[in-house]
């Protein structure tokens, strides 16, 4: 210690002396100009950390687990609300914001930035370190990449995917159309599944499980990752079924044909296990920035759904005390106090649920509806889906529920509306569905589809991103249109997408200009995505 001190002092003196001789003493500069508290690649070589750490980052950024404000911008103030699951009682920006379709560019770049900075960049690093060398890790990264990026594409449309990392000489990067992106997703999933399937066969005999130290989702199980990849493939195939039926069928049937099949037990749901508080709990409890959405009250309330109490708490506002009372999207809010005592969300466990097993069953139900080989029976799948969801919550009353052929979505009354009755959805409204719970094999295609999607919507709660995408694709369940539309005519009753991020306009002007042409409409929230046809 002491010698070091003396050495340093002397070195200063020596430098002073040599500097006088018109030369400098810059030998220490590289060390001085190195942040002692950063980490370099070299330090991560041991224990595969150089591969493993990026994996951790990616898993925790699909839906950012912390800080909560990031999650709030990434998903909560858009998809979570547009899905009908939730609404904010906070009148952000003088109540002129995303929630009444006046899109806030300062918010809406978060999902994009999170995906590129915290998913795509680490995955590029993983790919460089693993492709052709540790193909199991490479395959795993492909699955995560698709899981992250299809969400981004479902928000914005065209994205940077196949051309990622390929900067043109002017610094710009090309976008893929949403179709090209989806085709690339299928390719990547196929590659991953082909690598992991044989490994999954041998899984029982493995002594060490390579993914295990870094896997926050499936504890290193190849089998479960294959099942998830199959289910994700089916999700994407179903998504494009209306737009590109042949490709959808091809990909969907491949997914259904894989020997490991889809997610089938609740222990297989895609849940990222974290140590930090679920961001929704912070936004809901600490900040009071999110409350239940009106459609949840209307649909689950109308169905007397036993799961409702696992979604939200009864309101504490005197006007609606002890009712499950949601807020409609885009309501006129003068002050936060108006709606803050409507139904809070429940406190969620500290786990990020991104795909439920129930969803797999509902995907299969729809696949059967569409006549895809290997999908099984729609009715059985539908019942399995609801059953899985009830089991997830350990909710009671499943049998009665499945048999209920009278309950329908109920009207929505907002007694605290600034404009009296201005927010109400009254009986007979076109926004209230007649569809009941009990499966009816004689119903027409659309009714069957609505039944499946409505139940899927319930089962996916609170994952607003997928729910919003499926609502846009199918129009189900029947959500309520935005009450006050402040988009200046750019967006209709239901928003279709978010605008490209403003930073891309300044750093990748050529790329984003082309992306707008790929989008096929103006860069507004009113332009429908490629798969969104009605």
């Amino acid at each position, binding site marked *: 210690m002491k010698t070091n001190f003396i050495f340093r002092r002397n070195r200063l003196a020596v*430098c*002073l002396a040599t*500097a*006088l001789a*018109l030369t*400098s003493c810059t030998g*220490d*500069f*590289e060390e*001085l*100009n*190195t942040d002692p*508290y*950063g*980490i370099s690649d070299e330090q991560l070589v041991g224990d595969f*950390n150089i591969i493993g*750490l990026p994996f951790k*980052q990616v898993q*925790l950024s699909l839906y950012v687990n912390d*800080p*909560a*404000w990031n999650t709030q911008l990434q998903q909560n103030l858009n998809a979570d609300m547009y899905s009908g699951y939730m609404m904010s009682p906070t009148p952000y920006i*003088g109540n*002129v914001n995303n929630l009444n379709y006046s899109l*806030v560019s*300062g918010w809406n770049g978060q999902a994009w*930035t999170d995906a*590129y900075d*915290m998913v*795509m960049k*680490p995955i*590029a690093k993983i790919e460089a370190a693993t492709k052709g060398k540790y193909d199991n890790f490479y395959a795993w990264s492909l699955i995560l990449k698709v899981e992250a990026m299809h969400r981004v594409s479902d928000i914005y449309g065209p994205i*940077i995917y196949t051309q990622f*990392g*390929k*900067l043109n000489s*002017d*610094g*710009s*990067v090309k976008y893929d159309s949403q179709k090209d992106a989806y085709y690339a997703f299928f390719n990547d999933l196929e590659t991953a599944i082909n690598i992991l399937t044989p490994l999954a066969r041998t899984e029982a005999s493995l002594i060490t499980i390579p993914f295990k130290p870094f896997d926050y989702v499936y504890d290193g199980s190849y089998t479960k990752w294959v099942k998830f990849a199959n289910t994700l493939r089916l999700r994407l195939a179903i998504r494009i079924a209306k737009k590109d039926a042949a490709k959808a069928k091809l990909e969907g049937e491949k997914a259904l044909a894989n020997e490991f099949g889809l997610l089938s037990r609740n222990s297989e749901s895609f849940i990222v296990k974290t*140590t*930090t*508080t*679920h961001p929704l709990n*912070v936004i809901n*409890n*600490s*900040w009071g920035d999110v409350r239940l959405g009106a459609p949840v009250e209307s649909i689950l309330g109308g169905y007397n759904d036993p799961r409702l109490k696992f979604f939200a708490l009864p309101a*504490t506002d005197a006007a609606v005390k002890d009712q499950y009372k949601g807020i409609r999207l885009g309501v*006129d809010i003068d*002050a*936060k*106090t108006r709606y803050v005592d409507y139904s809070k969300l429940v406190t969620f466990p*500290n786990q990020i649920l991104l795909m439920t097993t129930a969803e797999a069953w509902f995907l299969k139900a729809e696949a059967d509806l569409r006549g895809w080989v290997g999908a099984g029976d729609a009715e059985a799948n539908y019942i399995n889906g609801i059953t899985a969801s009830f089991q997830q919550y350990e909710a009671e009353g499943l049998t009665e529920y499945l048999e209920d052929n009278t309950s329908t979505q109920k009207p929505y009354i907002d007694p605290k509306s*600034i*404009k009296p009755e201005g927010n109400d959805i009254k009986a007979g409204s076109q926004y209230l569905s007649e569809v009941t719970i009990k499966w009816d094999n004689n119903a027409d295609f659309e009714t069957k589809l609505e039944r499946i999607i409505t139940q899927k919507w319930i089962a996916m709660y609170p994952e607003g991103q997928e729910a919003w995408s499926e609502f846009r694709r199918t129009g189900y369940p029947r959500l309520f249109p935005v009450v006050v539309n402040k988009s200046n005519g750019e967006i209709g009753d239901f928003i279709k997408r978010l605008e490209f991020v403003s*930073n*891309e306009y*300044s750093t990748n002007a050529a*790329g984003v200009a082309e992306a707008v042409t790929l989008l096929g409409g103006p860069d507004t929230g009113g332009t429908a995505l490629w798969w969104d046809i009605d």
Partner: protein
Amino acid sequence: MRKSLLKLIVLLFMSGTAAYAQTTVSGRVTSATDGSGVPGASVVVKGTTNGTSADADGKFSITLADPANSVLVISFIGFSAQEIAVQNQTVVNVTLREDAQQLNEVVVTALGIEKETKSLTYAVQQVEGEQLTRSRDLNVANSLSGRVAGITINRSASGPGGSTRVVLRGNKSTTNNQALYVVDGVPMINPSVGQPTDIWGQSTGAGSGSAGRDGGDAISNINPDDIESINVLKGASAAALYGSQAANGVILITTKKGKAGQSKIDFSSNLTFENVLLAPEMQYKYGQTASGTRDSWGPVVNAPDHVKKFWQTGRTWTNSISLSGGTDKAQSYVSYSNTTNKGIVPTSTFDRHTLNFRETAKLLNDKLSLDGSVNLTTQKSHNRPVSGIYNNPLTGLYMMPRGLDFDYYKNNFEYYSPTREMYLQNWWAMDLENGNPGLDDQQNPYWALHRVRRDDKRDRVFGSLTLKYQFTDWLSVQARGRFDKSYDKYELKANAGTQSVFAPRNGRYTFDEQFNSQLYGDFLVLINKDLNSDLNLSATFGTSIQDFKQNDGLSIDATPNGGDGLNIPNVFTVWNITPSAERITQTLDKKQIQGVFGSMQFGFKDYLFLDLTARNDWSSAFAYTPTANKGYFYYSVGVNAVLNEVLTLPEAISFMKVRASYAKVGNDIPSYYTNPRDYSINGTRNSADQNVIGPNPFRVLRPEDNRSFEVGSEIKFIDNRVGLDVTYYINNNYDQFVTAPATSGDAKYSTWYWNLGNIRNRGVEASLNIIPVKNSEVTWSSTFNFAANRNKVVKMSDDGNGISKNSYQPLTAFGGNMFGSYIHEGDMWGDLYSNRIIKRQGDAIVVKADDTGQIVPVTDGVDVPNAPRIGNPQPKFTLGWNNSIDYKNFTITFLIDGRFGGKVLSVTQAYLDRYGYSKATADARDNGGLDMKAVYEDGTPYDSKLDAKAYYSTIGDRTGVGSEYIYDATNIRLREFSVGYRLPIKIAGIRNIDFSVVGRNLFFFEKNAPFDPDLAMSTNNALQGVDVFGLPSTRSIGFNLKAGF
């Protein structure tokens, strides 16, 4: 033994030349003005180093080798030097004339080199220490406002001892614009600890919901009583020798030292009282809209003004004592001061102690001089006022719905919770028993003060040692070292029951400590030689090294992320923080700068001067780039002519000089940017293994390139009764260091670094000294300081290098708020932009009926580039008028300080309007609405009054319409006023007793904004010209007692 030997050698040597007997000559040096002795006057035998200093009475004696031919040179600062031939006299009395012309006034310039004022080729302005202590401010930098032309000072709105932003000649840089402080020739790091970075008051690195904070800067640690004088070197020319840090100008502080023959004790005591000068205008007439609502658009309640009762009279008491004295061989100076302050906000206190010791000595036949000093400071503050929306007692104070009983909430800021068996916060907006966490923009102010306790503490030590050896009368060498280390500790203890955005359920504990240190060393060769009878050369060559360790910090926080935060409620220790809430950050910025430099000044016949400086720096920040090894070179050149000695000028002109200089200064970049690490620890995720990919190394980063030119003139008229000093300057700062987001498609980097653009500042500075009255009874001297600066971002970028020419570099990004501040080509540095506009048709605002039928203004959210520019906080010009009137034993001084032009923005006002708390809203309601010209969207006129609530609810709040909350920043104030009286006593042992009444910030002659535009939320680049619930500006009045023994 050795000494005798030395004497013998000297005697032997001298015997060869000294053919005559030695004689001792004695005498007394007196002042021509009043006949008093001139203590400390220097008496030197011309052409030798043989010399002495006069004692306290002005007496001296000196031994001469050659009394017949010796000539004594008697000199003292402020007097004209005299030469007297001894001619074998044994008593030589000398009367020195005060140097009325002050032409030979010496100022300290770069590297502590003293130069005659008249020889300078650039603008320097001096402020005497006495002026700084008269109406003192706890941060001495604030006392420069109005006293120096071209200085812009913005105090942090954090009360006594807070940081100060000092900018000379306009904002030049995208990164750092603050002037460099140099104490006794050595640069001083001046980190401002913990500045807020957003309108919530949160600071970088701190967790979300953190309290705004200002830990104070380094300059505020200097005791104003220790300052002899301050010289402000405004331009880069003056500063070239300090290296790149000086590109923004230099504040040169010369501290006091002991003087030979003068044993002095000075004592001063200063007690001032502060009250609110300018607080927001609010209404108390209209009550809460409805029970439980947060606004006051309700019926008339005529509530009492509870805000006025909240403020207390602040009190600052400063005591300072200094002892100095010495012989002609060694002099000592010791001072101690303490300050205790009680703020205008209850519970807020500030204490500071400084101890300063300085020793100067001459050794080895006066050839070796030594100058050493040690300075110790310790200070602590409790609940230092904060700005911003979060955790600020003023938000709850201002926005309590009218009609509620403030005294009740004052006396019952907590209640006993039966469910938790502890005291929790009691506030109208929250109901913790029923899970209602309340509002994130207000808490019970007394809870915020008593149960969210914040403590800042700083210990600092700095010391320096200078050794100078005079080889011959023209050659000396000097070595110097300085050590500066400060330790800051910050703790926040928020009890359970604090609003949940600011604290987890069981309370929050923040523990933050930071070291800042600097080692400095330099070595100089100093030459001052008459090359021939006309030409003098003064030159300095040297080398320096600076080693910095800044922000060497560790911060541990229990973040409010929804969990408990602390295992056991209200136990504030690190071990008690729960793992899921724990957030740890560790930082250290290292840097080393080495420099080699030289300067030469040629003086021709004492009226023509040529200055050349050159310097090459090597900064570790350029490691990994080509600049690392070659460093970066910069230089300055200046000329100066004293015209009255060359030309025949009109008789009225007693002195005139013209000067011009050009300088190019290279500036380095922040540490580590050429070598970003692959991963950084993600502290918010409470884990060492989750990282964000680092930014682009860009190993081609270059030094910033700052070029300035200035030309000026100094003229004195009418026997120097009128003096004018004018400077014009132009400064272009090229190749600025810019951080910009990368395109998303970059596979490795999320941020790119660039050297870009050019920011230009040009302007005029003038200072005018007048002595309007000067007779035997009254002397009135008066100084005007004027400065005007024009700033322009001439160029942002060349297109096609990844950052668009039209990009907006954020100083404060919109982030959903009503304003942002950006650097954009063609505009000014730091222009404010509005994030929302009111639609207008001609001069009428556009209105429409909203869903409820209410007529409201039509607004639209806009982002850059469409967001309108709404103003710039920088003044168009500043004018200070400083006066001192002496009449018999009385001295009256006053300083009127004006800033003209510029715009500032008040988020506070927007909040108060939005919720019906501002006086404006009450006036509008009294008026039955607002009289505004309005039309419907189709152009049909709207003839009625606009409803106050509908209007203010639309434009107010932090997310409101920024362009409606922009105000003219022009203000003129009585900055300082004092009346002093010197007791006419003649008692042995007492030099003087002065008593004065002093005032600071007394009142505004003119003011248009709802807050004091001098206040800034932060002293960094962000949040300039913006008030977000800042502490009101205060007026202080007090007494000063000074005694000299």
